[in-house]
């Protein structure tokens, strides 16, 4: 009998904690005539952030989250949106599907929208829930599979675009023509995202005269040794290698290639680089380029200046990274959507969704401005090539450009 009492006591504990939660808020009108949805009061707009703060991708995810939070702090310091402060409600997904669902369900009735859902795994886990709740969500999962999900928006160029543009750039650099072909290779994961990246590279190669894909080695996420793949690359004679990897594999591939005496030109997508890799890979990065859909911290543009100033003011102990820039840009997009919804006097989920259609977002020079269109297309085909400085930060080479090959690929796939 006693044993049954204990679960009841546990339930009792739950009861006391129930005081900490509130029931869902329904729509109502604010004192300024703006319709308010969940998470909106006369003083606040709650925006959810679902990121990994303690799990496998915490390095990038935490940076990205902070970038958005700092943007919100800055906006709030200037009066907020619609006279309301944006409050970030953070949930730790630990990059685990169950945790993500738990964190999402815990905040879904309390927030107006999700400003940032980081990682493909997390956005997949809550895809159907987002659809059911009509929750406008911005996903930092820069691939086309995520983009086409209902109510999910990716306001930046996707990795496939970065890679495709990288192919075109490499061809130009090498002066490739039909008579003087350029051999390229792609390195991708064995999952479906990897396949998408590989096919984007293939499509770009086909669309660019003189470019030939000679090898497409793949890797499993738990691989610790890349000798096999690098040997394959070396034997294929590829002059340019497109890296659709994460930072850990980047180190493995570049390092192993150096050991095997293979020195191609590397073109990595933006997700493949993190500044801390500069130290272990010192001296090996002369021919290493990163194709990014957005600018870097060394850009002399108003957006970056604002980012750095905001970090000084609101997060002086933290150092921004290129992932922080990503978070900041997502913040830009979120604020733009909220502002437009505010102008339409509709801060409900429907209002935000309507605001997101055809939304123009100006990134203040960090990357070309975009229009979100219907939310299911690639918003921008522009990316830019960068080299790596000694401290690991990216330095641009040339301007943003959108290659025809990338656009053709997008059109062929209905994006």
């Amino acid at each position, binding site marked *: 009998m006693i044993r049954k009492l204990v679960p009841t006591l546990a339930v009792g504990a739950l009861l006391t904690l129930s005081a900490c939660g509130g029931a869902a808020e329904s729509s109502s009108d604010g004192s300024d005539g703006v319709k308010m949805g969940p998470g909106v009061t006369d003083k606040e707009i709650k925006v959810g952030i679902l990121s990994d703060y303690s799990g496998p991708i915490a*390095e990038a995810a935490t940076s990205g989250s902070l970038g958005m939070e700092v943007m919100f702090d800055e906006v709030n310091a200037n009066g907020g949106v619609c006279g309301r402060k944006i409050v970030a409600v953070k949930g730790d997904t630990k990059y685990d599907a169950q945790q993500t669902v738990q964190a999402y369900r815990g905040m879904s009735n309390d927030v107006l929208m999700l400003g940032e859902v980081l990682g493909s795994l997390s956005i997949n886990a809550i895809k159907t829930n987002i659809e059911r709740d009509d929750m406008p969500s911005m996903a930092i999962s820069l691939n086309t599979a995520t983009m086409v999900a209902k109510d999910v928006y990716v306001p930046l160029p996707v990795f496939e675009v970065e890679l495709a543009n990288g192919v075109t750039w490499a061809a130009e650099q090498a002066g490739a023509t039909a008579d003087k072909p350029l051999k390229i290779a792609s390195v991708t994961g064995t999952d479906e995202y990897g396949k998408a990246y590989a096919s984007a590279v293939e499509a770009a190669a086909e669309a660019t005269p003189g470019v030939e894909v000679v090898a497409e080695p793949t890797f499993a996420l738990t691989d*610790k*040794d890349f000798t*096999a793949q690098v*040997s394959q690359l070396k034997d294929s004679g590829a002059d340019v290698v497109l890296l659709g990897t994460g930072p*850990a594999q980047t180190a493995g591939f570049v390092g192993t290639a150096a050991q095997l005496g293979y020195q191609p030109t590397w073109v990595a997508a933006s997700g493949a680089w993190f500044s801390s890799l500069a130290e272990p890979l010192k001296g090996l990065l002369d021919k290493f380029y990163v194709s990014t859909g957005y600018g870097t911290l060394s850009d002399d543009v108003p957006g970056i200046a604002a980012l750095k100033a905001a970090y000084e003011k609101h997060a002086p102990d933290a150092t921004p990274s290129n992932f922080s820039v990503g978070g900041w840009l997502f913040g830009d997009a979120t604020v733009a959507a909220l502002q437009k919804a505010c102008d339409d006097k509709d801060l409900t989920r429907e209002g935000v969704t309507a605001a997101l259609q055809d939304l123009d977002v100006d990134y203040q020079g960090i990357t070309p401005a975009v229009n979100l269109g219907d939310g299911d297309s690639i918003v921008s085909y522009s990316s830019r090539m960068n080299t790596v400085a000694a401290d690991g930060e990216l330095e641009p080479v040339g301007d943003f450009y959108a290659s025809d090959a990338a656009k053709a690929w997008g059109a062929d796939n209905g994006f």
Partner: protein
Amino acid sequence: MTLFLQLGFQGVALGMVYALIALGFVIMTKGSNTFNFAHGEFVAVGAYVVLALMPHMPYWLAFLGSVFVTVSLALLVEATLLRKLISKGLTTVVLATLGVSVMVHALVLMVWGVGTKGSAGPVGSGTVEIGDVVLPLSSIATIVSSVLVLIALLVFFRRTSYGLALRATASHQEAALAQGIDVGRMFALSWAIAAALAVVAGIFLASFPRVVSPSIAVVALAAIPAIVIGGMDSLAGAVVGGVIVGLIQVLGAGYLSDYGGGRLHEVLPYVLMLLVLVVRPYGLFGSRGIERV
């Protein structure tokens, strides 16, 4: 042929890292009859501390410093946890080590952050070439060091009195007690040795071109097939098992990448492990009768 030799060499090098980790597990199992879930985290701590100390002192000193820290940590865990729980059954102890691994992981993240860092190996990116086959220095260092460690362990177990006492405790605790061996001290010794091995494994696991990152601890899981294939109570088995797993992974990545979705080399060690368990549960070198808990 060149490819085969190349991959074979790298496979052996990676396998030696697994062997070092497996050795740690085996020594703890033999010495104190426990399976330490936190061993992977000890490997991580070893690597992180070496990396932290490296810029300030010569490498061998950084290595010793890390051994000191990791062994202290292991002894702390052994003294507070193991002694209290050893009588309560294997499951309890194993779960407690799981709790410890969670705690240590969080501590590592709190001290050093969630990012990837540099390489913590003793040698850099240099290579030696024999014909067409390239032998990276870090791989050579791994293999040579592992062999030296193995020899040192063999000498320790066969020729020293402490080693003898450990073996006695491992084979029959009560008899060892009856001989006047301080069993508690033997437990501590086995954990200390395992922790030292963890540091060695850590520096080679994070040797160029690999880097130190929070996910280093997960590699310990890859050593489990090594232990089973080799035999959970056999030192030689741990090494052979480790090399087998390393070879499967690297050769598999080279030759099997067109089959099974490109991931066959990931899962084969576990398939082999299950086969061994069904056919010969005590592994290639283990002794019969280990089935009892």
